[in-house]
């Protein structure tokens, strides 16, 4: 009786903290796991394919991310191999000591016993690499170190797994060779061919998301590789999108604080060196001379300036707006050059903005009588991670019934009132806060709202009233004689 109660109690406890650690352990078996790590600069792309065999009837498959990985993962998506649909994911819990996070994946259909499925989990990691050596002179190359767990962990038994690490160049300076792997393999634990390192195959791995396994068997591997492009970070992105129905205009303005997270420049910047490298066509790999951004089609009045004025070095190629709903993938290209080449450790902050026709991104829903406007979360700076983002959508004055549908949940949303050109009551604004955005996060926030006709008239009425009162004052002033002494 006592025994039973205790086990029951522990079950409840388990259910509270890591409910699926035990319960999920027997419903599936991983026949094979292949993880592919594509090394990059600020972003590392990891694709893990789980070949799954059901041991029980079940439709919830659980994946586990190690503490290190979970901390760095900013984007996570699960699919069935070969299908387009994204599977719903739910964070079940995080183990407070090991940091292991478990996610439940809802499979599209319940797997019967013995049936198999291929679950593909894609993650994008940010801040996963660091420059090594930490300083580099203008002539030096750039090398990064990437640290990850050796084994893919899973709450289920795994028959075989391997990890492929793809470096952008075959120039891999060093990598960890795991030792004491005799439990899982008898061959070389790691093989290198060209730019690819293969860890594994490792066989017969027990359910590995337990603390014991992690403490005893899990290992860390480090890859030190050459990376010939600058490592970019946007430390802060502030985007504000202002919708104007009067001007039929959507104005978008980005305040971007760019930081080169590559090795800090050793010694000092020599223009001579820089110019000769440019002359010989071998620019320093950690130097960013320019960025080219893809902006939406149909934009106009693009501006690019920083705290001390317009930056005169940029080129813009606009493309005309595409009709809504068409699949055409056109965009405008902005090649912007910072005032100075950005070396490792240097910062550059600037403002970029443009106007676009409102009809390109807004629609009127007849059924509900609401406007729906789509605003992109951010302008993607190629290869960069956005550490902090603040997206503010400013609706027209007098907008009511505001609803919003972000592509992925924000850390925080807040409503505020924004007062700008000749407003009387101010405009409702929604601000979304995000962290660690990558190119995967370039989604669209949809906002729907109603604007009554009277709200449209508010501004002209206010201006007309003000002007009218000025005229009235002038009229009175001209007509009324307030002089004490009358002139002859």
């Amino acid at each position, binding site marked *: 009786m006592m025994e039973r109660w205790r086990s029951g109690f522990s079950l409840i406890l388990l259910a509270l903290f890591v409910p699926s650690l035990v319960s999920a352990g027997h419903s599936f078996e991983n026949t094979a796991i292949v993880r592919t790590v594509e090394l990059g600069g600020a972003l590392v792309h990891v694709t893990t394919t789980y070949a799954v065999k059901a041991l029980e009837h079940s439709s919830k498959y659980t994946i586990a991310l190690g503490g290190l990985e979970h901390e760095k993962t900013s984007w996570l998506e699960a699919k069935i191999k070969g299908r387009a649909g994204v599977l719903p994911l739910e964070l079940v819990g995080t183990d407070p000591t090991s940091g292991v996070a478990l996610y439940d994946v809802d499979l599209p259909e319940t797997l019967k016993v013995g049936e198999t499925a291929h679950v593909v989990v894609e993650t994008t990691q940010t801040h996963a690499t660091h420059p090594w050596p930490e300083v580099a002179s203008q002539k030096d190359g750039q090398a990064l170190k990437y640290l990850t767990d050796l084994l893919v962990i899973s709450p289920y038994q795994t028959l075989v797994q391997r990890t492929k690490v793809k470096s952008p160049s075959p120039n891999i300076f060093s990598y960890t060779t795991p030792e004491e792997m005799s439990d899982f393999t008898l061959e070389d634990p790691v093989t290198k061919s060209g730019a690819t390192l293969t860890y594994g195959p490792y066989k017969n791995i027990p359910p590995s998301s337990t603390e014991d396994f992690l403490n005893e068997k899990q290992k860390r591997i480090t890859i030190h590789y050459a990376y010939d492009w600058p490592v970019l970070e946007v430390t802060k992105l502030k985007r504000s999108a202002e919708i104007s129905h009067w001007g039929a205009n959507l104005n978008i303005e980005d305040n971007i604080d760019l930081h080169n997270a590559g090795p800090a420049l050793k010694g000092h910047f020599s223009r001579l060196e820089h110019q000769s490298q440019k002359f010989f066509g071998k620019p320093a790999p950690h130097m960013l001379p320019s960025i080219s951004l893809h902006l939406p089609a149909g934009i106009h009045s693009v501006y690019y300036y920083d705290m001390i004025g317009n930056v005169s070095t940029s080129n813009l190629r606009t493309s005309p707006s595409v009709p809504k709903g068409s699949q055409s993938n056109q965009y405008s290209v902005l090649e912007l050059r910072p005032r100075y080449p950005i070396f490792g450790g240097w910062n550059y902050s600037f403002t970029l903005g443009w106007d676009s026709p409102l009809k390109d991104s807004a629609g009127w829903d007849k059924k509900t009588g609401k406007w729906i406007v789509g605003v992109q979360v951010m302008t993607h700076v190629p290869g960069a991670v956005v550490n902090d983002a603040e997206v503010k959508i400013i609706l027209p004055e007098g907008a009511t019934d505001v609803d919003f549908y972000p592509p992925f949940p924000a850390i925080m949303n807040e409503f505020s009132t924004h007062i700008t050109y*000749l407003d009387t009551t101010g405009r409702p604004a929604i601000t979304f806060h995000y962290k660690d955005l990558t190119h995967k996060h370039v989604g669209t926030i949809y906002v729907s709202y109603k604007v009554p006709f009277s709200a449209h008239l508010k501004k002209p009425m206010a201006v007309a009233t003000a002007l009218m009162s000025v005229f009235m004052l002038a009229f009175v002033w001209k007509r009324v004689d307030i002089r004490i002494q009358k002139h002859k």
Partner: protein
Amino acid sequence: MTTKSAYLLADNVSPATVTNTSSLLRIIALALISGAAIASRLFAVINFESIIHEFDPWFNYRATRVLASQGFYAFWNWFDPTAWYPLGRVVGGTIYPGLMATSGVIYSVLHALNLPVDIRNICVLLAPGFSALTAWSTYMFTKEMKDESAGLLAAAFIGIVPGYISRSVAGSYDNEAIAIFLLMFTFFAWIKALKTGSAFFGTIAALFYFYMVAAWGMLSVFVFTLHKFSPRTLGGYAFITNMIPLHALALILMGRYSSRLYVGYSSWYAVGTLASMQVPFVGFQPVRTSEHMAALGVFGLLQIIAFAELVRSHVSSKQFQTLLFASVIGMGILGTLAIVGLTYKGWIAPWTGRFYSLWDTGYAKKYIPIIASVSEHQPTAWPSFFMDLQFLIFLFPAGVIMCFRQLRDEHVFVIIYAVVASYFAGVMVRLMLTLTPVVCVASAIAFSSLLDTYIDPTEPEIVEDSSTDVDAPQTEGSSNVAAPTPKKAKKAKDAAPLPSGPLSDIVSSVTAGSFKRGERPRGVFGLDTRLAVIVHAVGMLIFFVMHCTWVTANAYSSPSVVLSSQNPDGSQHIIDDFREAYYWLRQNTPEDAVVMSWWDYGYQIAGMADRPTLVDNNTWNNTHIATVGKAMSSSEEVAYPILRKHDVDYVLIIFGGLIGYSGDDINKFLWMVRIAQGVWPDEIQEPNYFTRTGEYRVDDAASATMKNSLMYKMSYYRFAELFGSNQAVDRVRGQQVPKTGPTLDYLDEAFTSENWIVRIYQVKKEDSLGRDLKSANAFAQGKKRKRTKPAPRRRAIQ
């Protein structure tokens, strides 16, 4: 009255319609003039961008930002620790806050109306906006001189004349931007007060005078400009302070004392002086310093004369003469005693060097090199009069002589203004600005007289017995004001009775040729003469407009922060090195990093890079500037302790040798040497920087002192390497630079801009092993230490 008419005028128009139409036309014309004035100042914004120009405006802009973001009291008490490091600068008490306050008020008003205009745009567009107001106030002023049509011409002239545009293009956010408007409006209010004897207009003049005192710190006219040198100098308001008393004095001496003059002057002086003393930077100067003594003296004189007039109206003339005699002697003695006593006590200081600089405008230049080092303090070259004023400079004397024709009280003012301003404009380039308004006014008077004469359709009558025609002398003659058209009819009563001084008789006989009875009638006959003259006049105007546009577009609209050149395909290429380097400093150095540069760039560094500077364009502390000059002109070993003592982290220099930018530091170098020499004559000597033959060179032949100087080393560090195997050429000096360039031991190159215009060096910290940096550097480069002593010892052992 029916007169013969050269061409037909519609005569069935009612006078009311004519008045209304003409006033509507005037309003439209003024609006168009304002539009033209603003538009012609926008070249800089269109060709470049909305940016603050030059050097001083950057400080004004920075101060305005403080005012706009932190409020007026914070601004008033603003102590800026980043300027004049480590001394700091009490900004609130050492500036004329009128300009910043104006933009601050505009900013607050716009923001209160929910018009979130950026403070930078307000600052950039303030000068064009005020130029429209200047055009209006010039119109009002000239209207008092002649009539509305002359006023419109004057407004059009001042709206586009390059002499004024040069200091008021969009982005040149300096005190002159609003001061010319205030100047003209104060003068207008003064003339109005004088004409009407109205205390109201006297007070208006005083208020605008106060505004001007608060605004115009930059331009001192009577007292030669020491402002670049010391904060305790006078601003341009001294010009008004002295113009108005001078006018009043002239009127008294001409025997034109009147109660109108008394009321106007007294109300202006009393209110204006008290108000101006509220500006902390002015303080008690108006009652203490010699520049203001004229105003005070005239005020006293007016009181005495008023009293004398009062007494005279009460006593007989015999008694009055005795009384006058006694009081003149008494007051002479009393006055002398008072001045001696006050001077002795040190309360007033009339006999300082500044008093002499009043008369000898070269005084300051002769004794203080830093003033001479400013290019706009050089004497004006003749071509620049034409450049800045074009055909107005020829019409100007004519207009002044026109003023003698009537010589009403206000005409005396224009004449005095013309004489004084011409003199000062000849002395110093920047004072062209004060000459410009009076040139526009006088030229407009002349030009509109010409037009009046030739457009006036009245044909001279060929009747011999012109004695019957009373109107003829007034309606005819080459400089007629009142044409008998309905529009002009009311002007006739405006004209005060002509004063008949001997001078005006002479002048009028010279200029106009009085219409003497019995002679052949003079005047304009027929349409052809009229057309010929008018077409030519209009042609002059057209050429004037073209000239103004050209000069404005080509000469006065460059921000100097951004340089422009042309690509081979003709498109504009922007050379943006200054901002590149300043922005690099701002983004990639610690916020408290101290930057040393020559003082020209102090305000720009503070404004754009937001870093503390050692010296800036305020130039109030000559020793500090000389310290920087000394550091730049001495060798590395000598300069290093100076740099370290002043916590200098970065040294910024301007080098134009690569692309041929001639305003660089090597060209300014001799001034640094001279200023340093003024303080340390033993250590820095100018002749050492020349070659034996007395040339200023940077090539192989340069003197050793020159080659070792920090400035030379920083300018040419690694410059020759850029040319590879070719001979390196400095494109500004046109000289070949030595193949092996200078080396630096105590500084490190930190940043060089794209075209090498700005070079920034970091000052190394002391070596951690206690070596001097030179040997530490040699060690790091793997050079063997020069063994001076051990070597012989070894040889001795052998």
